[in-house]
C-alpha cells in the first residue's frame, strides 16, 4: 500500500482527491491500480504503456527515471509523488 500525491492538474480525474491509497509491488503496478479505478488518468500519465515524458514520479524522494522506471519497487508506506511541470509564475 502506497500513498500517491495527486497534483492539482490531475485532481479532476480522481474526484478532487489530493492523495490516494494504491496497491502494487512496483511503480507500474501502483499506477495500473490507479488507472483501473480512474481510467481518465491513463491518458495523462502513460504513453504506449510507458510513463509519459512530461510526467515525473518520485518514490522516497527520488525520480524513478534515475532508478528502475516503472519497475522501481514500492514498499509499504512509501509515498509516491506525481509531479507535473507547472509554468505559472504570475
Amino acid at each position: 500500500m502506497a500513498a500517491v500525491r495527486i497534483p492539482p492538474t490531475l485532481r479532476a480525474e480522481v474526484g478532487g482527491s489530493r492523495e490516494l491509497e494504491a496497491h502494487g509491488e512496483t511503480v507500474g503496478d501502483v499506477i495500473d491500480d490507479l488507472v483501473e479505478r480512474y481510467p481518465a488518468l491513463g491518458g495523462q500519465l502513460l504513453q504506449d504503456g510507458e510513463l509519459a515524458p512530461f510526467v515525473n514520479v518520485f518514490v522516497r524522494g527520488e525520480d524513478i527515471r534515475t532508478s528502475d522506471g516503472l519497475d522501481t519497487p514500492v514498499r509499504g508506506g512509501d509515498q509516491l509523488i506525481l509531479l507535473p511541470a507547472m509554468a505559472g509564475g504570475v
Partner: protein
Amino acid sequence: MATYRELLAQVKEEIEEISTIEAQGRLDPSEGSLFVDVREPDEWEEGHIPGAVHITRGRLESRIEGLIPDKNRPLVVYCSAGSRSAFAAKVLGEMGYEDVVSVAGGFADWKRNGFEVTIPRVLSSEQRSRYSRHLLIPEVGEDGQQRLLDARVLLVGAGGLGSPASMYLAAAGVGTLGIVDADVVDESNLQRQIVHSTDRLGEPKVLSAKRTLQALNPDVRVVPFQERLTSDNVERILADGWDVIVDGADNFPTRYLVNDASVWHRIPVVHGSIFRFEGQVTVFSPGEGPCYRCLFPQPPPPELAPSCAEGGVLGVLPGIIGSIQASEALKLILDRGDSLAGRLLLFDALGTTLDEVTVRRNPDCPVCGDSPTITDYADYVEFCNAPLGLD
C-alpha cells in the same frame, strides 16, 4: 586598587605577545591563524591587516563566539598599539580560546614596517543604519553587504513571484535589479502582485515595479526591459551581465528559453512556479547541478498545463514561493549555506506541507548533458506546442 598602567603591565604578564614581524609571518592563510582587529570602526576604515575580522573591543565578548565558534583556532589579536589587544587576548583566554596572541606595537608598528594594508570599502552611515540587521549576521556582515550592493539580479517576470522576490532583493540592497516583463498592470493582478498598486492600473509593470523598488531603497538601480523575453532579445538582455536569474515566468516557452540561455551563459537560475495552492521552487546551477530540462525534458500538452490565468492561484502563494526565491538568490550572491540546487521543494498551502525531492543532472540532457544536441536558441513556442514523443 590598581592603576591602568599597573593593570596593563599585569595583563601583559599573563598573555603571549608577538612582534609585528612575527605577526607578518603568520599572515599566510596556510598558517591557519585568524587576525582579529579590536579597534573602533573609524580606525578600521582607515586600513587594516589583510584578511582580518573586525570586532570592536567593546563587543568582543558578545560577538566572538558567533564569529569564531572554533576555540582551537589560532587568533592574532591587534589594536593600534598593543594595549587594547592585550586586554582582549586575556579575556579570550578566559573564554576558552586556546591559542591567542596579542601583537605588540599593533597596527601603528605594522604600518611603520611597511607591511601590506587593506583599505576597506565602507558603507555610508545611512547604509550602516539601513542594513544594520544584515551587518549583525556573521554570514552577511559588511563584506556580504558590499557583495549584495555590487550584485546584479535579473528577474524574469514582474508578476506574482517577481513581486515579493524583487521587493526583498531591493530591501536587502541588491545593487542592480533587471526586470523583464511586457505586460501592463491589470486589476486582476492586484490580488497577489504586491509590487504594483491600484494607482498603477494600465502602467507598464516594469515601470510600476521600478517606482516601488526605488521608493523602498534608493540604493537600488532598476533596469526595466519592457518586452517579452524571446530568442531574439535574450542575448542583448543577458549581455548586461547578471549574477543570478530569478525565473518567475508564466509560460513554458519562456521557462525553456531561460534554461537554455542560463546553461550557455553559466548563470544560476532560481526557479519558482505556482498553481492554485501549490508551489515548486529549486535552483538550477549550470555546471554544478541539473537544469530545467533534466527535470522536465518536455513540456506537458497545453490541456494538462493550465496557467494561473486559467486555473487560478491563491494570492499569498507567490508570496511564499517568491520569498524563498529571494532567499536563495541572496545565498547564491553571498556564497553562503546550501542552495536548493539538486533539490526541488514542493509546497502545498492546502495541507501546509513541504516536501523535498531529489533532482539529478541527466548525462543525456540535450542542453547540459555530456553530449548536448541543442546548442542554439530554437522556436520555443513551437517546441512547447509540438506533439510529444516525436524526437
